């Protein structure tokens, strides 16, 4: 059985990026097929060229990449900022599905434009040029919306609030915050969580995602096809009358849920 390289490439293109890397070890012919532009072109999203060329910082990534494989690896290793700094884009390494993060600037933060409540500061650890830093509020309300058209169809996605806590934060340890997620025009699912990771108690706490950032999941949703649906998220605490301070918002991230 001596399959020509083209047939081998067609078989490998139907596996996953992780498998394609592994199959390089089978034989020299497999390696050539597994590394081919044909295979990695199938793993990359079809609109990758237009996506990357609209990035201010990375528009030359396409021309600098020597192969589709190296482009894939570059896009899955670190995010690129697009849409005038309002979003970032990355590929999920295992599956090649699209991941996005809405920057804090792309969210609606109530009182966000009033400097004594919220400030916009640059932070070295952020991929974006600025993050939203909470001075103090009683009324915490943050909303975001994303069109599912930008995501990979036929995929279960989860949305995460990506944030950090300053050392002297107050108001988040005992006061739960309501997270909500749902499609526009549909039902929303809500839950009450604690944003302060050092809190005790039974409510859901955030996870560490890479110093200094924490993340907490809003929930999951399914991107069915190429219909333009809007998924909405909100972070709300407006009832308790508790003063809150020391929260830093990087954004809301969307990535495929495990075992897709």
């Amino acid at each position, binding site marked *: *059985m001596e*399959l*020509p390289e*083209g*047939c081998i490439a*067609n*078989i490998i293109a*139907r*596996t996953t990026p992780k*498998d394609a890397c*592994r*199959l390089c*070890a*089978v*034989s*020299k*012919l497999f390696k050539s097929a597994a590394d081919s532009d044909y295979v990695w072109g199938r793993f990359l999203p079809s609109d990758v060229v237009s996506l990357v060329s609209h990035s201010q910082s990375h528009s030359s990534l396409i021309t600098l990449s020597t192969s589709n494989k190296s482009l894939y690896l570059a896009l899955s290793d670190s995010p690129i900022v697009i849409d005038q700094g309002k979003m970032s884009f990355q590929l999920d390494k295992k599956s090649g599905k699209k991941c996005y993060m809405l920057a804090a600037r792309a969210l609606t933060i109530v009182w966000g434009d009033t400097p004594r409540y919220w400030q916009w500061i640059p932070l070295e650890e952020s991929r974006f040029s600025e993050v939203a830093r909470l001075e103090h509020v009683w009324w915490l309300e943050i909303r975001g919306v994303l069109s599912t058209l930008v995501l990979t169809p036929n995929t279960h996605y989860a949305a995460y609030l990506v944030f950090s806590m300053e050392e002297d934060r107050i108001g988040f340890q005992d006061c739960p915050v309501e997270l909500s997620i749902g499609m526009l025009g549909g039902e929303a699912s809500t839950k009450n969580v604690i944003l302060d990771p050092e809190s005790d108690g039974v409510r859901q706490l955030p996870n560490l995602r890479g110093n200094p950032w924490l993340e907490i999941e809003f929930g999951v949703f399914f991107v069915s096809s190429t219909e333009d649906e809007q998924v909405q998220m909100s972070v709300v605490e407006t009832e308790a009358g508790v003063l809150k301070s020391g929260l830093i918002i990087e954004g809301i991230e969307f990535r495929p849920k495990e075992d897709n």
Partner: protein
Amino acid sequence: MELLCIRQWISGLLPTWLSAWCIKPVGGALVRQEPEYILLALMGSPLKKIMLCSSEKEIFSVEEQVMVQHSVIINNMIEDGSYNHEESKIPLDCVDSKTLKKVIDYCTHHTHHHNDNQEDLEAWDAQFLNVDSNGLYDLLMAANYLEIRNLLDLIYGTIKNMIKGKKIDEIRRIFNIKDHGFTPEEEEQNRKEYPHFY
């Protein structure tokens, strides 16, 4: 130009609901069916057959529509007129009789049963591909040569499932790879770096 006028005239004779029906799949794309064939079929003309000749010089007669719907190569031969119905047979020197018969089976079944539900078709396909690896290889080569998109997809998918999660040594056995082509140093390096692959 003349043919175009005749076709338009025939199209005009057909009721509109039938004209709308004149779509056929060719190699995965949908193509307008020539109205004269519809008219001939309506008039009770016998279904046109073509002759395929295997590498062992065995002749297989098969409905033209069946092969034209599935094989891009055969469809192109018929469309560009290089196939003469009266005297020609299409020589397929790289496909043996056993494989050609199977390919014809596949195309015929899928043409006549394209309205079946998905589950039944998938069950039939699974049974169809219940062959040894040599048979699978021969089918793949034939489907590749004849450019039969859906059969190719089916076989590629099957082989992908065969190798999913398997170790390198086992994949080499499946594909009968005696010489992997790496230098001893390269092979040793791979095994050291990724021992769990092997």
